[in-house]
């Protein structure tokens, strides 16, 4: 598993300096993007890798999942990963039933859960960080579904 933080010379921390990340990202793409490198396959691979790493580090949810994965916990692909708890399922269900499932509430919920994730990652409580992250991901999925629904 590649460490995406290393790629951008950043410390492997949940809280990162987004400006530094962006600056490095642009610097790399100016060198490796196919428009600059002339469609050479090695450089395209580099450009792809940089895009992937940047997207992971930019999103707090993906960034947290990446840190967990570096510590042996794969919450994204592993079928054995912990499932979302009953309480969260019930909470979203009730939000839906009451008809006030709002993007703002969901975003707020995700934000506060991520703060908990951050705390646990800092204290190296990876198992509980994973458990909370899975809840956050569930709310995020609900939020995305809500957004997609608006498109159609």
């Amino acid at each position, binding site marked *: 598993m590649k460490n995406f933080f290393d790629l951008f010379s950043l410390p492997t921390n949940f809280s990162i300096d987004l400006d530094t990340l962006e600056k490095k990202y*642009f610097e790399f*793409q*100016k060198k490796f*993007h*196919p*428009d*600059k490198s*002339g*469609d050479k396959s090695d450089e*395209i691979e580099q*450009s*792809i890798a940089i*895009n*992937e790493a*940047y*997207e992971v580090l930019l999103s707090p949810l993906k960034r947290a999942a990446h840190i967990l994965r570096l510590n042996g916990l794969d919450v994204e*692909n592993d079928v054995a990963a912990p499932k979302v708890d009953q309480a969260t399922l019930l909470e979203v269900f009730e939000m839906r039933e009451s008809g006030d499932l709002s*993007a703002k509430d969901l*975003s707020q919920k995700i934000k506060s859960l991520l703060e908990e994730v951050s705390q646990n990652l800092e204290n190296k409580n990876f198992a509980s960080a994973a458990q909370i992250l899975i809840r956050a991901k569930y709310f995020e999925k609900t939020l995305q579904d809500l*957004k*997609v629904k*608006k*498109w*159609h």
Partner: protein
Amino acid sequence: MALIKISEPGAIQENERENEIVIGIDLGTTNSLAAIIVNEKVRFFVDENGRDIHPSIVTYGDKKISSIKRFMGVGFTELEGIKLAPSEVAAEILKHLKKLAEKQLKTEIKKAVITVPAYFDETAKNATKLAANLAGLEVLRLVNEPTAAALAYGLDNDAEGTYCVYDLGGGTFDVSVLKMQKGIFKVLGVAGDNALGGDDFDDLISKHLGVSRAEARKIKEEQTIDQALFEKLIFEKLEKTFTLTKNLLDDLDLESSDIKGVITVGGSTRITLIKKKLAEIFGVEKVLDEIDPDRIVVAGAAWQAHNLSGNSENLLLDVVPLSLGIEMMGGIVDKVILRNSTIPMALTKEFTTYADNQSGMKLHIVQGERELAADCRSLANFEIKKIPAMKAGLARVAVTFKIDADGLLTVSAEEKFTGEKQEILVKPSYGLSEDEVKKMLLDSLQNSKADISNRLLIQTITDSNHDITILQKDLEKYVGEDKKLIAEKIQNLENLIKEKASRDTILEAKEEMEKAAENLILEKVNAVLDKGIVGKRIDVI
């Protein structure tokens, strides 16, 4: 051989990139334009009347085909009673632009950057690329129209910050949000509707007033319609564009206050109601005027062409507009690449077998945001074969989706258990069958006069070389008194080929050589006939 140079495809690429002229093309629903950067300024290619905006209309006899862009990627279509492939029609428009550019620059143009609506799907993009190939143009890059507009605006105004591009053309609507800073233009997200534009407004007027579409368009452009009635007619269509704009901001977790300016693009943005509504959403000072809505996209295309020719430091980072996924059991889509991911991008997903000794796996690739594959656009079906026999769930097939900088997709697969790699590439789909595409490419070659004469010359040289080789061999054994003459004629033909003489001159020399060698040929034919006939039964001959 001096005439036919064969070199490694990669070897000459770099040189060509730097030396060859690349033009920018805006292939629009209603109008098309072409431009190039000269001395850091945009220069438009004009027709004999000095006009730089060229109607996207192709005439076939007495029939006029317009708005072909709305059909890109749908396969053969019947228009005005003629069955046509949209790529063929678009190719005619591109050929016209190419010709204008060649006339003005006095050199052959082989490469172009072409703009497409950001919300064009894979098939429509491929169809555009095919149209360019049919017109004899290599597409150096497909650029999304709003991105091109932002590039032109940004370079012109040293813009920095987050901007929104609202692009309402004749047939398509795009909305895009970009972050600009010195030398970098990063698209954050796009949304749009491929079937919403000025043409729809014409239809609405035509229906309401009972006039033809052409008349309706004139009424719209000359504003000889009651403003209140016009706004009422188009209200619903316009509302859709504003909803898409607001949803995009939402999607990107942005507030309208985060947007520094709104760049309006496309002829339809001349409608006062649009400016008014955008001012309501973003604030009146944010709606940037002084932009030429008809020329800004082609200006961006020309700048990107300039960038790709290695002439500047600017970099465009674009996104894929629609998610890409695989159809799972039950028809549900498993999204592999999410919309608004920055390209180039690649992602790998692992799949496994669900039955013991399952030897193949069928994959259906779709594009779109809906949950069910049936509601998305089908891109390709392909099959992974020769999976070694093993228990269900043991085989692991890694499928990699790769999107290049043009936003075009290739898919490859690898069976992990045995480590055997299976490169399965998804052929680009144009909404046409492979045979149809082949035939069109062939026709396009035959239609081009320059190409024909060039191919005839190559054919003549190939034939001549073939004859020379045979004659030289035969001549070694030949003892006739005309041996010296034949040798001279061969030498003469060889020299002409080396000197790159015209086809007629080479043909003439070839005939002379054949005439001189008449006796030799006759002798040879007789010898062959003798050998063949002796001892054979008559019915075999």
